[in-house]
């Protein structure tokens, strides 16, 4: 078992490849790894409550992936309500995850 942090800085709406990254998060979790999907920069756009892609994030959360959205990125984009299963985080928590809470970081 390894611990993964997948940091998604890209706009998931813009890149077709973002679907593969969400699938990767789910697949790693399915194989028994600990997975955090960390949304930052334009990555948080998918986490707004009511967004179409938010359902995929909620599904991942239900499957046991920890789904976090960075507070500064969300506030900058006027996102006040996050989708179900997505928790507001901050840069301190990301640094803690990188230093103590993971084995590998994948920055997308």
């Amino acid at each position, binding site marked *: 078992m390894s611990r993964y942090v997948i940091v998604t800085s890209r*706009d998931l*709406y*813009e890149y077709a490849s973002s679907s593969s990254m969400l699938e990767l998060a789910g697949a790693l979790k399915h194989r028994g790894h600990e997975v955090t999907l960390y949304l930052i*920069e*334009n990555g948080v*756009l*998918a986490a*707004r*409550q*009511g*967004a*179409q*892609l*938010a359902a995929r994030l909620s599904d991942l959360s239900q499957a046991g992936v920890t789904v976090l959205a960075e*507070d*500064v*990125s969300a*506030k*900058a*984009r*006027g996102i*006040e309500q996050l*989708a179900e299963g997505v928790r507001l985080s901050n840069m301190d928590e990301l640094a803690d995850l990188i230093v103590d809470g993971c084995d590998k970081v994948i920055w997308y």
Partner: protein
Amino acid sequence: MAEKTLVIFEKPIYLCMEPVDPHLFATAFGVVETPVQVNVLLRDSAVTYAVERQDMKGARVLGVDVQEFDTNPARVVAFMLEQGGQVYVVREDAEARGIAPTDLVPGVQLISREETVGLIETHDAVMVW
């Protein structure tokens, strides 16, 4: 002569060490300081530029604000509207991102994706940043 120009935004840029996306203030300059009639179409994820209550103040390095002046894309959108520019937002793109009409800066016009074709037809030049 490209007297009437449509500027299209697709990709939002935040917290890049400029007060706002430089393409956005370059467009605002066109609206306020030039004889060109500049109108703006926000589509894809750039629809977020028209969302109210955007707040950049949390971004700091060693306690120093990354953005010293309190501004944001919505403020520039409101400014362009005040100065006579038209700002259009693609309804389907806003909906897909969970953005409700009540979230938007007053005065922006929600239009359908199909209606954007008419905008292309009625402008002399089209710029996609």
